[in-house]
């Protein structure tokens, strides 16, 4: 099936089998490997992307269902290594990662959180991260990063 959608601000048209998952489409066909597949059962959240501005798990989403939609992956957060998104910069400054595998999903979830709640408390951040698992258990600095990232996003808006 041919589908067209906006991916990281660029229009794309691709042919996919109906059973193709969005995570496989972006990683295998479109070579955007920043979106990670951890559990492949919609529990770990490493595959979180934004669909029409909402965080969703791309491993549990048919590629055909984003036809006509707007998708943003972690690659779409910044255009170059020097000019990071405020949330990415906050993760860097606060060492909000250990092995880094869960980081793309953490970033995408965190940015969606700040969209809903510009000044989240630590408890609200921890509750929002229900769907993102860090198997290094590095939550302390992830939460610190999101508090800093939210402040930076507020300052930038």
């Amino acid at each position, binding site marked *: *099936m041919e589908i067209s959608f906006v991916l990281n601000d660029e229009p794309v048209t691709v042919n996919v*089998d*109906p*059973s193709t*998952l969005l995570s496989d489409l972006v990683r295998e066909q479109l070579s955007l490997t920043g979106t990670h597949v951890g559990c*492949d*059962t*919609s*529990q770990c*959240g490493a595959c*979180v992307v934004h*669909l029409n501005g*909402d*965080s*969703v*798990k791309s491993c*549990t*989403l*048919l590629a*055909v*269902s984003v036809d006509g939609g707007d998708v943003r992956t972690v690659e779409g957060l910044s255009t170059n290594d020097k000019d990071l998104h405020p949330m990415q910069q906050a993760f860097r400054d606060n060492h909000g990662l250990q092995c880094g595998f869960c980081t793309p999903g953490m970033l995408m*979830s965190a940015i*969606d*959180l700040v969209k809903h709640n510009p000044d989240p408390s630590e408890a609200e951040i921890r509750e*929002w991260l*229900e*769907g*993102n698992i860090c198997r290094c258990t590095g939550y302390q600095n992830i939460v610190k990063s999101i508090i800093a990232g939210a402040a930076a996003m507020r300052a930038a808006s």
Partner: protein
Amino acid sequence: MRSFNYHKPDTVDGVVSLLAGNENASVIAGGMTLLPTMKQRLAAPDDLVDISGVAGLAGVSMDGDMLVIGAMTRHADVAESEIVREKLPALAKLASRIGDQQVRHRGTIGGSISNNDPAADYPAAVLGLNAEIVTDKRTIPADEFFVAMFETALEPGEIVTAIRFPLPELAAYAKFPNPASRYAMAGVFVAKTGDGVRVAVTGAGPGVFRASDIEAALAESFDAGALDRISIDASELMSDIHADNEYRAHLVMVMARRAVGMALDAG
């Protein structure tokens, strides 16, 4: 996942005609249960009918005294709806605690009740509030809708289009979530109306059910203390690696008391 034919009709009639006579067709709403099931090959439909393109199936409105929620309304939209928060806050709160935020951005109320997972949250609200399930053919009372584990009164090819909730005087939902899946190990919805008290339990049994002893005690006196001498029969409750039936029976009473307290606080 096995391959399938994908259809995305834009009317209810289009959905119904694709499903008619096709035993190997499945409806997909948000896909939060169906896609994982297909990935595990526990389901392998030949035809998948995506109803997300059907206009008019999503949204929240009031129809007289009834709160009407379209089948394709996502959990996040129920949780954030100003109408639901004002008219039926217990339901908005229930929706805000289903799964995680990413699931709430895809999962739908119609999908949840049609699937009738024995540990899902929405069936407790639908049964506890004595809601009506509107399909493409008829209106089904909640007491008749939930038949058994993963089984409803829906006929083959019949789809839910909306759920109509009467507004209670007091209501609340308390759940003890499994810490990994967030599914209810025991969830209790209590609702007090002019007609009496209804109490629906999810997560503990093989399907959502009404707890008549708890209802009778609360009808006498709607306070948590009224449940001090009540217990529920554990013999028909579920046991699994997370909790045995005795523990679930205990949790049901704890959640029932908690829900009554929350309902009184909110009222």
